């Protein structure tokens, strides 16, 4: 091992030589790099959840002239430098390191999706770059204790019990669970089932399906024949559309209909299928314009720039995490990642969703909501307790007959 | 003990009996002719010997060993080499490499590449292809490609060489050269079985001849006996007897 140690010192010596030799370039802007899926299967997911929030934040920050950094005594505008990782994890890891090492960006934004977050977290951490998690997340991420990684989005750990609680409250007696054959599906599937059982709700069906299957009617028909009150599926958009579309086509109605990833998207789900069609559908989330004044402000800004409403699951989470991140930079007064990281890990700041802080595992916990339900075109938060913006609608109205 | 023996060799393609119950034997050092009209089963018999096809019934013995069912490469390594009716060379490989392949994988145990290339050059000299040794085999004339096939077969250092119509499609001078080469091969002590339609060559070169017709052996004997045999003439020339 000694020779490797020597080589590393030798390399740092060389690097320092080059760094000090070059005059400290006058800093005129903050460059944030992001390797994200602009093509390939995940591109649709990027578009539905989270992708635009980063663009909006940069747009709004630059409207105010940039972020004030005491070290440079002025506001620095922000530039977002994006690369397409083609939904390929190998390309993503290369491009992320290229942004850090070659393009020498100041900060990095996260790639899309759980598996990609898994790969990106240790790499960013290795180079001492803060990585605020975007869409995606799983219990397994906790096993990687990487100090520079902050998990923002909520997932099965908190949404499972809340959904079970809602089902118990409205009197659901039996449920059918279907889950996609991947990490997301398994974690949600295995989280929801024990939560239902703890509350005396009978799980009559618990089946996995392959991610790119073309026909899910067998599962729906089996659930219908079992006469369950509720149907809960841990799915991604393709599976979500199939479950919804096929239950409409087959006239299969459950008293409660829950999909993890899809209902939260106003343009992909509500606008594609129609407000009265999605009435009563529950989904992972959740927030809406009523959650807080800051939330309303986010919706208005988002609609102004993109002419569509933001995603009502992670939108407010990521937006607030970036506000928190900005306040940490302003407090640190410099672009030094170590200093900013320490502030982020320990400080609480006022953000769009209200007070925002990370727990000791650097997990964001003050979620604006866990489960949402479409009621008259609004994605109401129906969690029991203070966060609720409207009582759960149960039983769900039948799918409207539409010629 | 004959170098090659066939007992009741039979092969059917669908209903047609391509080769049925043929017994034959070839002595060491002999030039054995195999003649008969088209479709008589000559090439099928060759394919049975070299294991391109496996016989329906009957056995084939080489040097007393029953080789029915062996894989072609194994039979080659035991000392049986052949050429093909439709010539099969390695077109994009230079002539030299076509031949050296034989010496690498033939009967002789592990040959060093130096010995192998020496042997290949010697054989190329023997068949008269030395000056085109670097030309891709595909660019050769038909006659030269047939010689190349013989050279490749010789390079495997065989004891028995099956020649399948090496004179077909050649002009008179090329036929003469081919006959002269066969004699020189024979003088090296290699047993030969020749399928040939060029009667002049068969009559002059062969020690014994077997005649096949509709898959059956109808005659066997010295060239003189075969030339005079009523049955053979009838098969070849129909009713009218040859002058």
């Amino acid at each position: 091992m000694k020779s490797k140690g020597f080589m590393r010192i030798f390399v740092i010596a060389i690097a320092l030589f080059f760094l000090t030799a070059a005059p400290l370039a006058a800093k005129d802007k903050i460059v944030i790099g992001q390797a994200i899926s602009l093509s390939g299967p995940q591109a649709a997911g990027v578009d539905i959840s989270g992708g635009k929030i980063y663009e909006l934040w940069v747009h709004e920050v630059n409207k105010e002239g940039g972020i004030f950094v005491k070290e440079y005594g002025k506001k620095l505008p922000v530039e977002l430098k994006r690369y397409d990782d083609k939904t390929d994890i190998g390309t993503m890891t290369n491009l992320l390191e290229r942004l850090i090492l070659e393009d020498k960006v100041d900060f990095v934004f996260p790639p899309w999706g759980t598996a990609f977050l898994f790969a990106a977290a240790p790499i960013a951490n290795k180079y001492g770059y803060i990585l605020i998690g975007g869409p995606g997340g799983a219990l397994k991420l906790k096993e990687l204790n990487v100090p520079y990684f902050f998990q923002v989005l909520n997932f099965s750990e908190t949404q499972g019990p809340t959904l079970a609680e809602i089902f118990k409250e409205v009197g659901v007696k039996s449920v059918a669970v279907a889950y996609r054959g991947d990490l997301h599906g398994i974690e949600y599937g295995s989280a929801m089932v024990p939560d239902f059982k703890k509350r005396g709700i009978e799980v009559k069906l618990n089946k996995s399906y392959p991610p790119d299957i073309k026909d899910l009617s067998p599962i729906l028909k089996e659930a219908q024949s079992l006469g369950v009150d509720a149907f809960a599926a841990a799915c991604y958009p393709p599976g979500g559309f199939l479950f919804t579309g096929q239950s409409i086509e087959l006239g299969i109605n459950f008293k409660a209909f829950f999909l993890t990833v899809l209902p939260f998207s106003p343009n992909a789900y509500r606008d594609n299928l129609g407000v009265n069609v999605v009435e009563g559908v529950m989904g992972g989330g959740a927030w809406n314009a009523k959650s807080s004044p800051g939330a309303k402000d986010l919706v208005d800004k988002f609609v102004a720039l993109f002419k569509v409403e933001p995603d009502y699951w992670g939108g407010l989470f990521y937006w607030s995490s970036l506000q928190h991140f900005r306040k940490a930079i302003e407090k640190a007064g410099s672009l030094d990642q170590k200093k900013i990281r320490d502030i982020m890990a320990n400080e609480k700041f006022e953000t769009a969703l209200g007070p925002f802080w990370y727990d000791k595992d650097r997990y964001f916990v003050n979620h604006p909501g866990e489960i949402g339900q479409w009621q008259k075109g609004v994605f109401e938060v129906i969690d029991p307790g203070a966060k609720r913006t409207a009582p759960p609608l149960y039983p769900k109205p039948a799918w409207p007959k539409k010629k | 003990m004959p170098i090659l023996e066939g007992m009741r060799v039979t092969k059917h393609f669908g209903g047609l009996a391509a080769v049925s119950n043929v017994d034959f034997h070839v002595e060491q050092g002999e030039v054995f002719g195999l003649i008969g009209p088209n479709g008589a089963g000559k090439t099928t018999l060759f394919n049975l010997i070299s294991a391109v096809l496996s016989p329906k019934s009957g056995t084939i013995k080489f040097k007393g060993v029953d080789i029915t069912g062996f894989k072609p490469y194994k039979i080659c390594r035991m000392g049986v080499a052949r050429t093909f009716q439709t010539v099969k060379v390695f077109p994009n490989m230079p002539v030299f490499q076509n031949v050296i392949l034989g010496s690498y994988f033939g009967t002789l145990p592990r040959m060093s590449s130096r010995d192998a290339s020496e042997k290949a050059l010697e054989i190329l000299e023997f068949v008269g292809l030395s000056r085109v040794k670097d030309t891709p085999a595909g660019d050769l004339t038909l006659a030269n490609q047939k010689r190349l096939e013989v050279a490749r077969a010789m390079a495997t250092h065989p004891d028995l060489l099956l020649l399948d119509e090496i004179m077909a499609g050649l002009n008179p001078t090329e036929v003469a050269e081919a006959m002269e080469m066969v004699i020189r091969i024979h003088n090296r002590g290699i047993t030969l079985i020749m399928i040939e339609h060029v009667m002049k060559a068969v009559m002059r070169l062969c020690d014994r001849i077997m005649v096949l017709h509709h898959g059956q052996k109808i005659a066997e004997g010295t060239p003189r006996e075969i030339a005079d045999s009523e049955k053979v003439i009838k098969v070849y020339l129909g009713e009218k007897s040859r002058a």
Partner: protein
Amino acid sequence: MIVTVLDILIAGLLMGGIYALIAVGLSLQYGVARVLNIAHGEFIMLGAFITWSLYTAFGIVPLVSLAISSPLVFTIGFILYKTLFTRLRISSPSVAMFEGKSMLACFGLLFMIQNIAILSWGAEIKGYSYLAFPVNILGAKFAANRLITLGFAVVFGSAFYLFLSRTRIGKAIRAAAQDAVAAGLMGINISWVLALCFGLGALMAGIGGTLISMSYQIQPTMGLEYTMIALIVLVVGGLGSIPGSFVGGFLLGLVGSIVTYVQPGLALVAYYVIFMLLLLAKPTGILGR
């Protein structure tokens, strides 16, 4: 019990209809024009997106919009063959060489078409609901739009088969399929016929895309899955045999439906197991030559 059997049977046929249609298209492109079109799925995607635009922007009902989308996709296929593949065909010494090269060229096309689709329609998932109501058949319920899809797949499939076996152009195409060179000698303008076949193959893909867009959501990356299924059906039915692809499509649909009922996880595994067993046992497929 009967209902479940009926369920599986009809669900299988519904899927099979789409599979048959896209497989017939590919079988035409490969069987006749000797182009193993890896970008076949991209033509399906084009058909789907054109139908989506016509329906959401101008309210033209999918089956009517076929009259616009099909000729469009056909022309793209025809021109592509005339320019790119004809040149490739001329410059390749052997058919095997041409098959290899055209397959790789199709891979390039796949990238290009997908990128153009993302640029013009964006990457997000799109969809529309049309005839999305249940129809009751002997006690089992099925979606109307899927039944229409099956109906259209059968109509187009058989109409196309009649076209091939009855009309003069159809005979010319089949002759070209047997032996392009010989057909050429018989006075058939080969490069025109082959381009026609490639265009017709693309047309079938476009129709397949329209029918798929009626029951599923669409996105620019949807193509490759359907190309894989078409390839499987091609082998199951027998390479280059149009009726083979038609039968193979329904067969695969049925198998998929049965396996999905028993163990949904294994549906796609089953496809590939059949595909590979058939390749080993009978490469020429059920009705292959």
